[in-house]
């Protein structure tokens, strides 16, 4: 389980996270929802130790993040994390070099699934294909938790469909996923837990299945109620 406990974060004098707490379980898809600038990416960065927090605590399987955590949890930011001059094969070799949990077979399967050429240079890929490579590099790690920041941001509809397919595949099965996205339509039916954020606070955290079954509402319906739109 990933536990985010009352984290606070300032950028200068501006408080971007004002005591955010939630948990994300293995085998569940948790979606952080909110407009731009509410602190979704900051939460992701904080979980991965990529930005310091002012106060609060983040635990992964009951322990604070350390170097070994990166063999259990991976983060797929909205921009590719490899050098532009690298070929996809170089990027895969790089991952294989450093991560014990790198699964080469899965990486090759994903290459085929996304119809990517191993020898293509990252700089020459379209935005959609770069997003797919980014996803491949993250999901080919045999980790327990996957964090994805805006995986559908700015990419074409066909790439979006292909990426959305990942969420129904074995690539996600049994893993804990935390995802931030504006465009939840593509994956709304797959989300287990939704966390609605605004101005650095959690407005509502709910089990999507319960809301669907008991109240007959979709996540978007709840968002409309909470965000008053």
């Amino acid at each position, binding site marked *: 389980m990933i536990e985010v406990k009352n984290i606070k974060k300032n950028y200068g004098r501006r408080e971007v996270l004002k005591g955010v707490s939630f948990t994300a379980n293995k085998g569940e898809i948790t979606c952080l929802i909110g407009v731009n600038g509410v602190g979704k990416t900051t939460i992701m*960065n904080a979980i991965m130790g*990529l930005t*310091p927090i002012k106060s609060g605590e983040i635990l992964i399987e009951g322990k604070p993040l350390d*170097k070994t955590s990166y063999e259990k949890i991976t983060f797929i930011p909205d921009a*590719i*994390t*490899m*050098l532009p001059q690298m070929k996809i094969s170089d990027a895969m070799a790089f991952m294989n070099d*450093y991560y014990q949990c790198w699964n080469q077979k899965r990486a090759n399967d994903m290459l085929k699934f996304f119809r990517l050429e191993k020898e293509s240079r990252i700089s020459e890929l379209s935005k959609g294909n770069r997003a797919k490579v980014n996803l491949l590099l993250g999901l080919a790690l045999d980790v327990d938790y996957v964090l994805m920041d805006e995986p559908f941001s700015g990419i074409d509809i066909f790439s979006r469909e292909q990426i959305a397919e990942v969420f129904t595949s074995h690539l996600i099965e049994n893993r804990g996923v935390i995802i931030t996205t504006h465009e939840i339509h593509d994956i709304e039916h797959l989300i287990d837990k939704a966390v609605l954020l605004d101005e650095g606070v959690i407005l509502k955290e709910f089990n999507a299945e319960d809301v669907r079954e008991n109240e007959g509402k979709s996540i978007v319906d709840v968002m409309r109620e909470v965000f008053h739109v």
Partner: protein
Amino acid sequence: MKNYVKLFNFEMGRFLKGYLALVGITVAVQVLGVVIASRSYTNKINKYVYHEGMAIDEFLSQFGDMSMYAIIHSLWIQGPILFCISVLLIYTLLIWYRDWFGKNTFIYRLLMLPTERINIFFAKLTTIMVMVLSLVALQIMLLPVLNKVMSSLVPEAYFMNLSFKEMISGFDVLTILFPFSFSDFMIHYGLGLLAVTLLFTAILFERSFRLKGIVYGILYIALSLLIIFSPVIMIAITEKSYLYPLELFYLELILCVLVFIMSILTSRFLLNKKITV
């Protein structure tokens, strides 16, 4: 350790083309300089000695003989050296900043590697030092070669063969780069290593605290320099020295080692606790 070696190898690979370009420019410009200077000198010999009948001794007393000493002070030799120094100084900053400001956000990947983050620091530090030392080694090997090239172009009667030490004597930058004793080598390159380490720590302050970090970085460097030079400052203030020169040297050495360790620990703390992507 294994990850440090891999990261070092990776960092070297990232600047390999740039480094080979520096090697190519250095060799090409210096060889060209020697050829042009030698040709110019032999043209004078042709003009005055062979066409106007000037005696060799008179020519030598008027124009002097030809040796590497004559060209080593020229831009042909100094230019590439200063160019390499400038590029490596700029690269000392770029080696960090390009991971944040490049087209892709490679710093995310570096910081999420399952290894101690200080390995990233050591890999970058080693890369800079290895590049500096290998360019110095190249220059050490190149000077005797240039001497040979010159000796093959200038008639023997007009050419003075110089040893490596004679070639570079009187040229301050070269005597810093090519110290004559092992202890001088350790001092010069040890101070170089310390300077790069302090600069890296200052960069990490900036990357951790952004605008405030620039101030912290400058203060950090100032504090480090104050610690290093405190014995000398004390002597200057009190106008008395209670230490023999050798004791002062060892005291300075200890202070430099302490500042180096302090810088590594500070960088480790910043990388683990304060760095921001």
